[in-house]
């Protein structure tokens, strides 16, 4: 009673997860707005009566319930026809309120009280019901707070966990990734790994004197005399031509062949010479 403010249960404020009881019976009351609110507030006749009391910041223990009959009737009149199925229970409480109010207004003789000893005082009976109802309503709110903590317990249920996994009930993977991230990652990886040496587009051909000398010797085996231009007729590579010519000069220098050219730019005749080492051995 010391703290007449927000009711608490074991220090936990009984607020969250429960729609606060908010409604208005004032002039600005708009039916279309109240429909949703009423679903919660007018869920039962005791809920409505308790809301009326708390809206007026009155104490359930001491309030004269008969005084609320008018407000209750007013609220009841605003209930949509669609909720007539529940209306009887509201009317029942309303009748009690009117009875309580009537008794309070009319002078009562002390004698009938003894005669109807078994009959409980309707106001105290309704008050007791209100207190009991409030107790469970607040307990429900306290439970809601507890539930909202998310400290749920789970038993082992392999099948359920598997189904959850299969149905994709997994944690949200978060916002979609920017495709640029992928490109950046690729670039980064390129920087990390040194690029492989790309295969050369032009094969560096190595033309050796030995190769070309072999070609010349082969030609000489086919014919002891040939014209260089004939041998190189199909060769378009100048390097090959030049190297072949150099090889020819080498062969001439080694006295394997004799060269003859009648005129500048004329045909170069290549003639095989007898092996020199044999002559040296003889000589």
């Amino acid at each position, binding site marked *: 009673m010391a703290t007449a403010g927000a009711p608490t249960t*074991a220090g*936990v404020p009984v607020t969250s*997860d429960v729609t606060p009881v908010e409604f208005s019976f004032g002039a600005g009351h708009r039916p279309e707005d109240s429909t949703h609110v009423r679903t919660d507030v007018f869920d039962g006749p005791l809920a409505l009566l308790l809301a009326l009391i708390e809206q007026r910041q009155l104490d359930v223990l001491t309030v004269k319930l008969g005084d609320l009959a008018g407000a209750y009737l007013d609220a009841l009149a605003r209930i949509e026809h669609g909720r007539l*199925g529940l209306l009887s229970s509201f009317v*029942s409480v309303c009748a009690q309120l009117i009875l309580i109010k009537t008794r309070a207004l009319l002078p009562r003789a002390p004698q009938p009280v003894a005669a109807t000893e078994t009959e409980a005082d309707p106001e105290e009976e309704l008050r007791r019901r209100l207190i009991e109802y409030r107790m469970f309503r607040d307990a429900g709110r306290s439970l809601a707070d507890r*539930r909202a903590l*998310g400290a749920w317990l*789970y*038993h082992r249920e392999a099948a359920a966990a598997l189904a959850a996994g299969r149905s994709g009930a997994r944690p949200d993977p978060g916002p979609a990734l920017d495709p640029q991230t992928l490109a950046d990652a690729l670039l980064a990886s390129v920087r990390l790994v040194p690029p492989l040496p790309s295969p050369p587009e032009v094969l560096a051909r190595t033309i050796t004197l030995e190769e070309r000398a072999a070609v010349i010797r082969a030609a000489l085996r086919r014919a002891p005399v040939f014209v260089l231009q004939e041998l190189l007729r199909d060769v378009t590579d100048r390097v090959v031509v030049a190297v072949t010519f150099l090889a020819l000069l080498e062969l001439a220098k080694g006295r394997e062949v004799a060269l003859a050219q009648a005129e500048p730019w004329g045909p170069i005749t290549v003639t095989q010479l007898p092996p020199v080492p044999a002559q040296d051995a003889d000589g």
Partner: protein
Amino acid sequence: MADELGDLTDAAQQPPEPPPGELSVSQLEALLFVAERPLARREIATLAGIERDQVDALLGDLEVVLRERGLRLLSAGEHVQLVTSPEAGRLIARYVGADGGRLSPAALETLAIVAYRQPVTRAVIERIRGVDSDYVLRSLMHRRLVVEQGRADSVGRPFLYGTGFDFLERFGLTSLDELPLLEPEAALRLDE
């Protein structure tokens, strides 16, 4: 082949050996771990071949041991079950994708009446709430927060309702003893 199958069937039907007649706390923990359902205390006693009150004592020991762990012992009357600890709740919820949805004020107050007054008949619930509670009760049963607990012996043998394992799990309670106290209740009882 047929003989082998016959042997296997016999072996499955008849316990190969008598119950050991003893049970350690770790064995009890292992048993509860394997069982993917609540086990009755009596069932455990029969399996281990020990007395029922021995099982109760061992369960008490296990409860103490588990306080340092990620598991708790959930106890609802005769039945017990291993569950994850409240601290792990949000993590496990992410894994199994649990979403409890929202409970209306009507559902919450009805649930509170069932939780604190169980076993309770629908008539008692409706007397306290002052309104027909058939629909809200069905909805709570559908969500397995409320379960039928037999029938009352009174006229018409009405159904009795109570909370089940799901209620304890969803509200992070390892037993009904952990329900927050109803302060005004004691006062009410004194008045009555």
